[in-house]
């Protein structure tokens, strides 16, 4: 006979607030909570009175681990924060370190990072919408979207060697340049995606079942959203065009033509629609960037962070030592602290890093949108039906990797 396991959480409430209610536990072992979120809910019939949201089941000590790796060696960990759009994490982290080192990346790198960030955003939004639709039983729409996502994953694997966690960013540049024919295939995938997202629009946008589940469910106002720290598509779904790509332009966004789609009232339907429109805008940006991509070097010419050519490492003592020092000691980052944020697929993805000089960070802190969103998601769950938790939670797009770190 096994002894019962200790409870890892202490719910905020264990007693009914009034007669006739029942307290239930949802997750973490539940597909709709992505396997990592636990919700303790008080129900009156089918109505949710209050919820207590717990996270942390996927905590793996990201920040602690970073403190014993060189600035370069922790890039694979950064990848595993938001594993649906790992490249955005890479670039946000690299930019934070570059700011501290005073490095300005090359034009080709800047445009290519922007292109890949938008491409990743498409993959992330496709994942979110596909999963949310599947949870409501829309299997066809799910397959359409995930088919395109798989094309994107395969296409990124051609470039980086991996489908999901790419480790492609480098401080001061990128791992390597585009393979031949990559941009041609990019155009084909985007064209096919337009067809497939068009079909999804046709299947669900005016579908009565879909509207009943999404419209006026999980509503949040702009003031509430700001108070609870919501950023990204959730904040935009409440009707304000707050987007770091427009507001504090970084990378090459200032030179691009794009719109910031917004919703009407901040419900599930708006969050779905904002993401679908953002896919269109991102595709529009990727097409522009593929045209604009300048020739030239990919990595900065800075011996503090960029690895010398392999040929030189084998033939020249300075480059050999340079290579050795970069591997063993890591890039030398001057003392200081910096907070740098990118518009991740889910909202403001910030890195606060502290250096005391040398090759290993003193502190790397990630301000992950999913964690902040979990702090406020009860505002979208309380007062609706038990069954509404599933689509509402799906529309928030909680990513366990970055939520629990």
């Amino acid at each position, binding site marked *: 006979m096994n002894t019962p396991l*200790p409870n890892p959480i202490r719910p905020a409430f264990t007693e009914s607030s009034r007669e006739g209610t029942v307290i239930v536990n949802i997750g973490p072992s539940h597909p709709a909570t992505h396997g990592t979120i636990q919700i303790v809910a008080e129900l009156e019939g089918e109505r949710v009175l209050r919820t207590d949201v717990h996270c942390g089941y996927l905590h793996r000590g990201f920040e602690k681990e970073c403190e014993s790796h060189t600035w370069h060696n922790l890039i694979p960990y950064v990848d595993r924060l938001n594993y649906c759009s790992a490249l955005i994490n890479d670039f946000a982290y690299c930019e934070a370190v570059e700011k501290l080192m005073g490095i300005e990346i090359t034009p080709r790198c800047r445009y290519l990072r922007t292109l890949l960030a938008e491409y990743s955003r498409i993959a992330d939004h496709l994942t979110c919408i596909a999963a949310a639709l599947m949870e409501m039983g829309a299997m066809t729409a799910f397959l359409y979207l995930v088919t395109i996502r798989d094309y994107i994953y395969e296409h990124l694997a051609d470039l980086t060697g991996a489908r999901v966690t790419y480790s492609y960013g480098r401080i001061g540049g990128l791992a390597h340049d585009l393979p031949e024919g990559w941009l041609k295939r990019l155009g084909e995938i985007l064209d096919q995606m337009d067809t497939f997202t068009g079909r999804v629009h046709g299947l669900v946008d005016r579908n009565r079942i879909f509207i009943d589940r999404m419209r006026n469910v999980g509503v949040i106002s702009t003031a509430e959203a*700001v108070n*609870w720290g919501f950023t990204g598509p959730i904040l935009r779904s409440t009707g304000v065009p707050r987007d770091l790509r427009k507001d504090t332009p970084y990378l090459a966004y200032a030179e691009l033509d794009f719109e910031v789609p917004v919703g009407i009232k901040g419900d599930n339907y708006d969050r779905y629609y904002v993401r679908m429109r953002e896919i269109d805008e991102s595709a529009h940006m990727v097409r522009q960037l593929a045209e604009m991509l300048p020739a030239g070097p990919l990595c900065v010419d800075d011996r503090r962070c960029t690895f010398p050519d392999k040929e030189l490492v084998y033939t020249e003592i300075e480059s050999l030592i340079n290579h050795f020092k970069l591997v063993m000691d890591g890039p030398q980052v001057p003392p200081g602290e*910096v*907070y740098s944020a990118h518009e991740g697929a889910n909202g403001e993805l910030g890195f606060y890093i502290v250096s005391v000089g040398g090759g290993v960070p003193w502190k790397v802190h990630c301000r992950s949108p999913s*964690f*902040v969103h979990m702090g*406020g998601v009860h505002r979208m769950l309380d007062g609706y039906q038990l069954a509404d938790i599933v689509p509402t939670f799906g529309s928030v797009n909680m990513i366990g990797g970055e939520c629990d770190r």
Partner: protein
Amino acid sequence: MSDTVFTPIREHLAGTVLEATLEHGILALLIESSRLAEVVGALKERFGFDLFLDVTAVDWPLREPRFDVVWHFYSTRDFVRVRVKTRVPLAEPVVDTLVPLYGSARYMERECHDMYGIAFRGNEDLRPILLYEGFEGHPLRKDYPKQKEQPLVPYRK
């Protein structure tokens, strides 16, 4: 752009903050921990810093006071960020809570309490969030060994 926003803040808070510097485009304010509510209140009500981004701490084991507690705020009106920093000693790692001003502070203060043992006066709900009930110590403190294990469920032999 950021100067027009930051200059009035510097002027308004001149006597209140210990230091005000511009670091990589962010206005960094070093304050006494007792003036937190006053400074952040002014930032929010007067200067429009309506988005609470983050609270975390930095551990300096050889320094007294040992911890930096660091907040970041963003203004959705002016699109700039401000960093507020204060120092607290190991003997009394306590600062005021910002939950009355920002709802999102609730979760992030719990995380900071988890990881560094910083207590937030006025926040009654500092239950573990990324860690679990009964976890001993604060893993992001520099004196917490990285390899230390505290399995909730005993390992199989």
